[in-house]
């Protein structure tokens, strides 16, 4: 028996919007993509409810983790020493290995020189949990931009992204528990040499705890130990036989190990080399070949010759 039904109106049968219609182009902005997926970054942003589990272990030698910090005080530079120096082949970046909470050594093999992509490196001073998360986010952001936009993020874009992440961290930084003061070093492969001596393919960017960025030409140093070696760097650069930018790999390695040793001499939160346990500073270079870590054996050798004795000039 044939039931006389009216044909359903095709409009009523249209299925709900399907997934493919909701694909949005974020123009390569990874932070917007995360936000759209309701993923909150683990630092900064509106996390005053204490749910943010930023570790209170910090690369700081100043005050214990449990101390209430007066929010109106500017957070002092965090304990540690990291230094970046422009040399002949590119940039050399080094950092000591100690992480402290007050007067307690939490970790003696911390890696504070983090490779972000093939040609860029971030050296960190400040809260390690925040800094590692920042480095991880940066790494993913650069990759995401390249994969979705089919071209590498420009130098300007990368610098600005670092700035943005630090600024997003402001709330924690002002509370004095999560500040990060990084040095960002990169090698600009598209750089074309011109006659001006002050520019080069290797570029170093220095940030303050609120995200302002400064480009330095020859060197940068950060952390509580940095005050002791900033003057030395300036002196060497201006009046030593070889200006920093003209040093070769071995001269640069000598200089940087001596600088870190100097910082360790005067700053309790900066560790020198621990020869007995074979723990030396981490040294990485960024050159035409990309980011490379100096092998421990080479660092040990240089330390013996340039720091423990005076055989090397």
């Amino acid at each position, binding site marked *: 028996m044939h039931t006389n*039904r009216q*044909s*359903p109106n*095709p409009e009523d*049968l*249209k*299925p709900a919007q*399907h*997934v*493919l219609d909701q*694909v949005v*182009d*974020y123009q390569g902005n*990874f932070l917007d*993509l*995360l936000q759209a*997926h309701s*993923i909150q970054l683990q630092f900064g942003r509106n996390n005053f409810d204490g749910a943010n589990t930023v570790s209170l272990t910090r690369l700081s030698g100043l005050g214990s983790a449990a101390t209430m910090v007066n929010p109106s005080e500017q957070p002092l530079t965090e304990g540690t020493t990291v230094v970046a120096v422009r040399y002949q082949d590119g940039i050399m970046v080094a950092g000591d290995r100690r992480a402290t909470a007050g007067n307690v050594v939490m970790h003696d093999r911390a890696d504070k020189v983090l490779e972000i*992509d*093939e040609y860029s490196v971030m050296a960190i001073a400040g809260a390690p949990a925040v800094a590692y998360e920042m480095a*991880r*986010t940066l790494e*993913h952001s650069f*990759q*995401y931009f*390249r*994969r*979705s936009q*089919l071209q590498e993020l420009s130098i300007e874009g990368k610098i600005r992204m670092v700035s943005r992440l630090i600024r997003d961290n402001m709330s924690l930084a002002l509370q004095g528990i999560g500040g990060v003061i990084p040095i960002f070093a990169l090698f600009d492969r598209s750089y074309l040499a011109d006659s001006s001596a002050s520019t080069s393919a290797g570029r170093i960017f220095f940030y303050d705890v609120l995200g302002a960025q400064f480009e330095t030409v020859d060197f940068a140093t950060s952390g509580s130990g940095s005050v002791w070696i900033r003057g030395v760097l300036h002196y060497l650069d201006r009046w030593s036989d070889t200006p920093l930018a003209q040093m070769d790999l071995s001269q640069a390695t000598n200089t940087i190990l001596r600088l870190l040793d100097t910082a360790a001499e005067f700053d309790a939160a900066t560790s020198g080399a621990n020869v007995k346990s074979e723990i030396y500073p981490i040294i990485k270079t960024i050159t035409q070949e*990309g980011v490379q870590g100096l092998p421990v054996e080479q660092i040990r050798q240089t330390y013996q010759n340039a720091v423990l004795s005076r055989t090397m000039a």
Partner: protein
Amino acid sequence: MLDEHYRYLEAIQNRRDYIEDQIQAGSPVVGLVYNDGILILTVTSGQKIYEVYNDLALSAIGHTADVERLRLLVTDAASVQGFQSSVDDVTLHRLTHFVLCPPIKQSFESIFNSPTIAKILMAELGHPHQLVAVNYDGTTRTSQKAEVIGGTDTVERTMRNYMGQTDIRLGDELTLKQAFELALLTWAVGRTASSATEYGFTLDPDRGESDQTSEAEDFSTDELIGFVRAELEERLVEASILQISKRSKSKFRRLTADEVEDMMPLDSDKAQNNK
């Protein structure tokens, strides 16, 4: 329209015919495992092979806008997943089964909405390597050695037959040069087969429709090289690899024009002269 059941089936069949018609002239893509990873090759005037993640690549055939949407979908999903959990949690299996196939199938079956006109080929470095072809209706084919996508079933079958009948053993014993040559010739076979379809070659009446292949699979190497050379007057070989030995975390790399030039197969005359 849907008050009679068979109308739905008719609508689906029409949809298939429409998509096949739109996709048939597309340039085929060949994916091959070799001793240092996976090679993906096609001939195009733009870019068709994309990096999705550290060990993942994607290529496609079809309407550019649809391919672009799918590519963004997969890339976004991989990036978010890799950030939230870890890089190792981004796998081809998850991306194809949970991210790519459901929307594609949904799009295919939503007969009142516009279709997604694309076939996808994805490759993953791993233990073992994997190549997955996703059809416009959401079905998949997987291989650990070689996979192809082409404009029609005939084109794909012809390419697979051609690869099967060569002396070369597929898999991770191939050198890059061997893989490149095989991939390029397989592409040529597929492209010739689709041209034949365009011009309406006669179907073999003794074979069922699903067994149709093109006589292109019987072309000689020299004929195929000649065909490739003609095509390369207007377009370029796009060959990208997922390279195990690459130093950086991301293993994807597009071969340079020089590398492509070095690996182009010579026809037998040139090969003789070079000896």
